[in-house]
């Protein structure tokens, strides 16, 4: 190994760090540590002059390792890596010590905080010795896209891509496109016909030369990685560079809630069944009579610890839509809207609520947390079909609501095929089977698997405009990667040392991305670094020490631990 020449930079971050950590003392003490050539403290390391300081030192003092003690590496690691690169040093020769978020900001004793900061920096110094240079890598991109799911999200994404001249394979499990939107009558808040919107889109999709549609088709095993996926459809191999998953939703099964008697009480129906009545224009009870009163119950299977804790986002507005529709068809019918919370965010949606609330409707609130309403059959003296019984939250009174028909606003769950598809495309799911996006705020379209995007209700419950937005966003993202021709892939991946690998294959099933395969000729495991995301689980599982997580190697981490205890 070349002579180790380390530069250590302790940031004041204004007073953010300096107030709680004696940065000047640290810089002085650290300059005496073995192999540390320069140690400095500076007001703002991330500022241009701060970075220039590092660059100048690298060039003047021939530094070959840099330790920056500042904020979280999640904040500025990229910034400082760029500075190293600018100075002609491999960016991975950097190590950061987090003395702000995990030290100065969370502690109250300056002396202890300074000791801790020193430990963290010494650990970084020990670690950085073992850092290895890593190089950027990129792969070319196939222009075609596979879209799984032919609902409104899948269709929207397909059109966006196809209109840009890119090939799309649209795979739908059922025998027709359109998904759940086929079952909807009007859309909120403008009460437009869902059918009309959908039909227009469908005719475009079906006739588009760039879109190849596969109905009644389930997706097979998918191989490859961003830019170069492949799979078999009906026995034919197709290749594509990106995947959009749009598997959609499954309506909540209302019979799971015993209180509502769905399936037992004939006039208790789900929102989708009611959509059907609206479509046929025939709102009748099971006995064929016009209902004198209709009750709507919200949050069926949603926002409830026992079923699903999340909000299904569309039910409140759909219920308001029903109030409008019932009002116009059956003006004399009393409507009871029984909700836990009224959530009407979104463009024109509050307005929609506002206008609807002035209609012939009585809003009642139930206590979602403690007790669901109970529906029972009415007795002959009640002059109605059903009685709903619950503690009305805004008055605290236990009340009975008479109704001839009860509409259950069933929530959304992930499609039953979601799990299987997740496995095939390599995306992960939250506890409730919705797919996990790469970042809930900054990247709600991509997934942690490069080249795989999730759109529509398979990612989380959402309404039609949100689904379409997400679909088009995914399409735009894909077009951008296609435009770039190549894509950069993770460099802090795993690596298997062939000289040490014994071929036990323990690592292969451990990899969540199927990035490790066995080379039967060499009798060693091999990492496909394009697929690898660098979690390092294989390195921890490898009994021989052959599997290494680059930038998080055993020796790096063990040295770091040693460093933590190298001072008093």
């Amino acid at each position, binding site marked *: 190994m070349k002579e180790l020449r380390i530069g250590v930079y302790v940031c004041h971050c204004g007073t953010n760090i300096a107030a709680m950590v004696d940065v000047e003392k640290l810089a002085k003490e650290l300059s005496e540590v073995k192999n540390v050539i320069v140690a400095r403290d500076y007001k703002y390391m991330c500022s241009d002059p701060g970075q220039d300081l590092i660059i100048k030192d690298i060039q003047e003092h021939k530094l070959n390792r840099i330790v920056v003690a500042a904020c979280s590496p999640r904040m500025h690691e990229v910034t400082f890596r760029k500075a190293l690169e600018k100075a002609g040093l491999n960016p991975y020769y950097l190590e950061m010590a987090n003395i*702000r*978020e995990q030290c100065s900001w969370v*502690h109250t004793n300056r002396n*202890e905080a300074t000791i801790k900061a020193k430990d963290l920096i010494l650990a970084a110094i020990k670690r950085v010795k073992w850092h290895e240079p890593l190089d950027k890598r990129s792969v070319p991109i196939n222009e075609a896209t596979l879209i799984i799911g032919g609902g409104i999200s899948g269709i929207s994404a397909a059109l966006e891509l196809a209109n840009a001249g890119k090939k799309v394979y649209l795979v739908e499990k059922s025998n027709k496109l359109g998904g759940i939107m086929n079952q909807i009558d009007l859309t909120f808040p403008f009460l437009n016909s869902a059918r009309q919107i959908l039909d227009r889109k469908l005719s475009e999709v079906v006739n588009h030369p760039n879109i190849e549609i596969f109905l009644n088709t389930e997706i097979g095993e998918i191989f490859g990685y961003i830019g170069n996926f492949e799979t078999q459809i009906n026995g034919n191999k197709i290749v594509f560079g990106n995947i959009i998953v749009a598997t959609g939703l499954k309506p909540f099964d209302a019979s799971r809630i015993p209180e509502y008697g769905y399936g037992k009480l004939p006039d208790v129906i789900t929102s989708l069944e009611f959509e059907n009545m609206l479509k046929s224009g025939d709102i009748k009870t099971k006995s064929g009579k016009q209902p004198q009163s209709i009750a709507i119950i919200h949050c069926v299977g949603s926002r409830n610890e026992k079923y699903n804790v999340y909000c299904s986002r569309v039910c409140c507005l759909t219920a308001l839509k029903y109030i409008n529709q019932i009002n116009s068809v059956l003006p004399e019918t009393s409507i009871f809207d029984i909700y836990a919370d009224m959530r009407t965010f979104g463009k024109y949606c509050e307005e929609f609520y506002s206008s609807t609330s002035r209609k012939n409707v009585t809003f009642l609130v139930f206590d979602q947390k403690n007790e669901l309403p109970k529906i029972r059959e009415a007795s002959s003296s009640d002059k109605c079909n059903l009685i709903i019984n619950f503690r009305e939250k805004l008055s605290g009174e236990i009340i009975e609501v008479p109704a001839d028909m009860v509409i259950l606003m069933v929530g959304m769950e992930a499609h039953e095929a979601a799990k299987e598809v997740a496995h095939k495309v390599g995306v992960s799911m939250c506890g409730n089977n919705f797919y996990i996006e790469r970042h809930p705020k900054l990247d709600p379209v991509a997934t*942690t698997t490069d080249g795989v995007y999730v759109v529509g209700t398979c990612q989380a419950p959402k309404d039609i405009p949100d689904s379409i937005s997400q679909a088009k966003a995914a399409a735009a993202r894909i077009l951008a990667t296609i435009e770039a021709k190549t894509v950069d892939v993770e460099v802090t991946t795993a690596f298997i040392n062939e000289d040490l690998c014994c071929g036990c294959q323990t690592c292969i099933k451990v990899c*969540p991305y199927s990035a490790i395969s066995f080379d039967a000729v060499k009798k060693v495991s091999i990492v496909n670094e394009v697929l690898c995301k660098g979690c390092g689980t294989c390195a921890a599982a490898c009994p021989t020490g052959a599997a290494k997580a680059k930038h*998080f190697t055993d020796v790096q981490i063990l040295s770091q631990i040693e460093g933590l205890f190298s001072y008093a």
Partner: protein
Amino acid sequence: MENKVNEKIFKPKIVGFLCNWCSYTGADLAGTSRMKYDESIRVVRVMCSGRVDPTFVLKAFKEGADGVLICGCHPRDCHYHEGNYKCLRRYHLLKKYIIQMGIEPDRLRLEWISASEGAEFAKLVNEFTQKIAELGPSKVKQNIETFS
């Protein structure tokens, strides 16, 4: 907290292995939210709790850690799908091993901290520090130093 941990007598040192995506971010959040917790913890960042090799834990004890805390994403929330489960499996076996080796099992702890759980992280550190303070200094390092 600080009153209970008697600084003069014993200031615990804890090594925390935090996964990059959930727990480390959660710990950062505790910082950006200016939550306060004990200085005992020294964090080692790993990409995934699945990267935590039992060797790291043993090494930390050897170097003088009074406690070792491993934090990963909540079950099913792992950024790498299932790394946290692998950590869980190793943790249980490792625990059995350290018990056999006479180390108090409470010195090793695995918890799930999500990126949004800054407050939970702060609470966890304080709680764990308190527990370690009750246990007193770890004897592993001394035991190795006096090995003869």
